[in-house]
């Protein structure tokens, strides 16, 4: 009988049942927190390390990013007569070392995180897809 009262008093389970009931009816600041992802997206932090983009005017094609990349993601390729980095995002660690290393602060990582694709080749982001032109404040 002592064993029963010790183990089957059910007080603990009652407490748990009450907490879950509160969640079912959202009592006391227990709201639904998920979002309906493809239809509704969460706001990204400004520092989010997503897909790279390279400032077209600032980049000098020096190749320091290529050296500093731990995984061999970056290759310097010729595009429109100048040298620009090309990112193979299939190998990218998104560590941000290239951003730190860039002497001209030309590389940015922000925004894009929906990078899934059907082939490995399409994960190679050449200059035509990553270059952007900085808007100059007048």
């Amino acid at each position: 009988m002592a064993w029963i009262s010790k183990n089957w008093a059910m007080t603990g389970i009652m407490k748990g049942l009450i907490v879950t009931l509160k969640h079912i009816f959202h009592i006391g600041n227990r709201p639904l927190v998920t979002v309906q992802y493809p239809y509704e997206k969460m706001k990204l932090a400004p520092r989010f390390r997503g897909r790279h983009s390279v400032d077209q005017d600032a980049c000098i094609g020096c190749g320091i990013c290529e050296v500093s990349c731990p995984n061999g993601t970056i290759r310097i390729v010729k595009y429109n007569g100048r040298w620009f980095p090309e990112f193979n995002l299939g190998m990218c660690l998104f560590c941000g070392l290239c951003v730190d290393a860039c002497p001209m602060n030309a590389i940015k990582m922000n925004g894009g995180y929906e990078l899934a694709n059907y082939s490995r080749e399409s994960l190679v982001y050449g200059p035509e897809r990553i270059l952007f032109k900085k808007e100059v404040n007048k």
Partner: protein
Amino acid sequence: METDELLLNMGPVHPATHGVLRFKLRMDGEIIRDCEIVMGYLHRGTEKLGEMKTYLQFIPYTDRLDYLSAMPNNYAYVKAVEELADIEVPLRAEYIRVLTLELNRIINHLVFMGSLILDLGANTAIMWGFREREKALQLYEMLCGARMTFSYMRIGGVREDLPEGFIPKLNDFIKDMEKRIVDYEQLINGNEIFLLRMKNIGVINADEAINYGMTGPSLRGSGVNYDIRKLEPYSIYPDIDFKACVRKECDSYARYLVRMDEMKESLHILRQVADTMPAGDIITTQKYGIAPMTGAPSAVMTYFPRIFTPPVGEVYTRTEAPKGELGFYVVSDGTTKPYRVKIRSPSFCNLVALPKMIVGLKIPDLIAAFGTIDIVLGDVDR
């Protein structure tokens, strides 16, 4: 009647093995007679990679060891290199580091709690754990731009300063978290079925636990009053008021309670750090020409020399990661790349004791005891 032992292969693909671990169980009906652990399915040769990369380039790889608590991994490696090269770290950087480390301890223990309760068959706690974890991950996203693989620590400091509005958001998180912990405790702690499953399961006493190389919360659950943050204080831990959470029961339930207490203790540390955050540099300016890049248009303010060569030597540092003692043995030969990086991962060494704990118990007990050891396969296999 003639009976035969049942050889049961649990894993490498199994819902309760937290990844790709394989148990070879010799069973008598449902009772485990012998347990052999087979691992290595996630071996990526991180130590060999360490010899191939420069000191700075290895930081992102440390994220991938214990991917649930990447920041302590970052920190343990960076601390080893700093000790090797004798680099002084500015005070603000140390405060930010401790802040991120303790936040990561909370994240790790939330996932631990969720996955343990999920392994026991209750499906609610894991989502609650992930709900709070999401808030902490958003803090990390604000701070360093990544949610799991931070690579935020730099040799001599941290990558970026705290963004605007970080401390108020952190305070909100702390306040919210305190309420949620009460919810968890109401759901789990007194639950009779949970107690039936956890009490006196996976018992290992203090001497055995030490001999089997257990560390961290798993060891503190066996009644050893030890915490590397207390014994060999590093960073700013000597200035901070906290206690090592110890339980004497030596069973799975004690190991669970230690981690729940540690979450509260980490919240306590976070509050102190947030209140007393000093101003100053976030990365050292003293040696090796490391200097903040002044007037940079980008938000990224740090700049690390491309050629960093610590002096010849070797060092072993231990830190208190959420899962236990995380040590890095770094050998330098005076070049830009480490000669040898040895990782003493807590999950690997804690797992040694598992067969000892569970022989003579049943499969559900194996899962309960395994859950309370709290391993991550990336950390075991490296």
